[in-house]
């Protein structure tokens, strides 16, 4: 052993100026059993008498006495030293370090969790466990149409400290497209399968599903998103699929959905003309409302508590040119929500239905998923088909992402930020879930952010509303002029001339208000 150690030191000297590429090591941790050892053969260490006798004899040994006396004095010195002064005292414990925010933001890869199977599947959905994110649940399935059953149906729960082997395997009836931890009950999960079923797990009970919905009453297309609802029993969830339905489930009785909504804009409940749901949004602070992002590019806002099914669909937002892969409300400003689809990300204000209030420029490749940072109101993350993770800070720069990181070679399909805002997990098409740590500049909340966001947003909204009114006015004028006959005019509707007059008045009053404000501002500066 000594010889090999020497050899190693020599070798490292040679490599001093180079870098070494190490092979990944697999670690398994397990306990160690301590057994008493070292006793001479004739003594049974269980036998108290024998051990005591041995010890007494050892205690009388000459060498023993002399060495202990000497060791004792050395030891005493050190003990006294420790008592005299605390060498390891922490000075200035209460002072916090000065935040170095001048450094460039970074996202450091902490770990890569790889799909253990030979045939890699795409990580289509990720969910952090609610107990401070020690575990990450990942759903694996194939997004390629009709790629058959050589793929295993397993999905995993990973412990982020142990990247070499998943902590738990989940075995659904068909590959999972989406998977969510219940934010209230941290050991239960709900997953949506490729064949339309939804499945429920209780991690205390092992890896088989506790229950899954019956095939007849489930979705007819892959379930793209499932979200847990806030309820007293903690057992309600709802799911969306491209078959045009949104189904509500109670996990205690998964054989049938408790409620059903068909995403048919003509409000006739016609499944044939329904839009395919591909993402869902639900905010616990607004439990009666939810939004569905569709394959057709529209975002539908719905009210669960409406009396008739026709009224459940409240309004739509014409979002993207392709599937809306993610919809999420800003956790600090719930009136604003983020959507991604085609090549850009858009931020909307609920009240303005015509267009989004902020769009990013069209990127090089499609955006597949996005989410807001749970700690900073102006930060959101998007992932793209070219394997790039973009971090946007819209208070800092709206035209480009604040940070762009190329995570992997394939496309990135899913992203989730952990509750503390520092850890981000993104899933790729090659079955890798990469964990990144975000620099403190992007994950520590700044002081006035929320109010700043709000100011700008409201101003922007007002301007846009004004613009909308103008557009509507112009259109109405045009249609008035082209059609001489009026069909039915509702009471209270103004004639075109009156509209023009009102618009002019509004315009001039707005200009005056602005001028007055500027004058006042100038006066203040002069004073």
């Amino acid at each position, binding site marked *: 052993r000594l010889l090999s150690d020497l050899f190693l030191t020599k070798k490292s000297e040679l490599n001093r100026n180079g870098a070494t590429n190490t092979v990944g090591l697999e670690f398994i941790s397990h306990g160690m059993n*301590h057994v008493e050892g070292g006793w001479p053969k004739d003594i049974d260490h269980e036998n108290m008498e024998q051990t005591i006798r041995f010890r007494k004899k*050892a205690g009388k040994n000459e060498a023993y006495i002399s060495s202990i*006396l000497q060791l004792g004095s050395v030891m005493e010195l050190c003990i006294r030293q420790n008592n005299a002064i*605390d060498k390891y005292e922490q000075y200035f414990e209460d002072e916090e370090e000065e935040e170095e925010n001048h450094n460039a933001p970074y996202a450091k890869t902490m770990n890569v969790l790889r799909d253990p199977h030979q045939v890699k599947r795409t990580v289509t959905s990720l969910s952090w466990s609610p107990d401070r994110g020690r575990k990450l649940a990942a759903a694996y399935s194939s997004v390629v149409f009709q790629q058959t059953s050589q793929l295993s149906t397993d999905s995993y729960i990973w412990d982020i400290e142990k990247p070499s082997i998943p902590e738990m395997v989940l075995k659904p009836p068909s590959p999972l497209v989406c998977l969510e931890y219940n934010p209230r009950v941290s050991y239960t999960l709900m997953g949506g399968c490729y064949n339309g079923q939804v499945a429920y797990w209780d991690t205390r009970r092992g890896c088989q599903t506790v229950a899954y919905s019956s095939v007849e009453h489930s979705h007819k297309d892959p379930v793209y998103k499932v979200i847990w609802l806030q309820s007293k029993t903690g057992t309600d969830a709802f799911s969306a699929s491209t078959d045009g339905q949104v189904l509500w489930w109670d996990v205690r009785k998964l054989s049938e959905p408790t409620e059903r909504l068909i995403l048919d804009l003509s409000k006739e409940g016609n499944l044939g003309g329904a839009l395919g749901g591909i993402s869902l949004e639900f905010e616990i602070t607004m439990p009666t409302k939810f939004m569905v992002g569709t394959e057709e590019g529209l975002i539908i806002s719905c009210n669960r508590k409406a009396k008739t099914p026709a009224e459940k669909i409240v309004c739509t937002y014409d979002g993207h040119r392709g599937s809306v892969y993610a919809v999420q409300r800003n956790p600090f400003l719930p009136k604003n929500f983020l959507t991604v689809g085609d090549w850009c990300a858009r931020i909307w204000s609920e009240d303005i239905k015509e267009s989004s209030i902020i769009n990013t420029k069209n990127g090089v490749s499609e955006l597949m998923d996005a989410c807001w940072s749970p700690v900073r109101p102006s930060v959101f993350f998007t992932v793209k088909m070219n394997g790039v993770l973009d971090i946007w800070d819209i208070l800092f720069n709206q035209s480009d992402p604040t940070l762009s990181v190329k995570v992997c070679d394939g496309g990135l399909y899913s992203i989730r930020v952990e509750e503390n805002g520092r850890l981000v997990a993104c899933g790729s098409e090659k079955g890798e879930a990469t964990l990144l740590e975000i620099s403190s500049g992007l994950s520590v909340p700044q002081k006035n952010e929320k109010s700043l966001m709000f100011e700008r947003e409201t101003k922007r909204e007002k301007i846009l509303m004004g613009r909308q009114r103008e557009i509507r006015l112009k259109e109405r004028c045009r249609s008035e002029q082209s059609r001489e006959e009026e069909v039915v005019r509702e009471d209270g509707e103004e004639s075109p001339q009156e509209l023009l007059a009102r618009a002019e008045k509004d315009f001039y009053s707005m200009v005056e208000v602005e001028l007055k404000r500027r004058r006042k501002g100038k006066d203040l500066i002069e004073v």
Partner: protein
Amino acid sequence: FADVEETLKRIQSQKGVQGVIIVNSEGIPIKTTLDNTSTVQYAGLIQQLVLMARSTVRELDPQNDLTFLRVRSKKNEIMIAPDKDYFLIVIQNPSA
């Protein structure tokens, strides 16, 4: 014999000392003030640590030898005084 007892008593009575163990070169705890399970655990683990530390020191300089080893942890400090045939282990929490 009595001197040994006295020395140990003196050490035990120092402020913050939580336990004293004397282990022989085979890893058998000769004298201890802790319960049996902890003693066996300390003896086994620390013996390995001492062997490693000693071999480290001697490899860096064959003329050198280990005289004392201190392992400072968040909760306490484990001090080990090694000898040719025995070692003395003291666990102390100085701030207690």
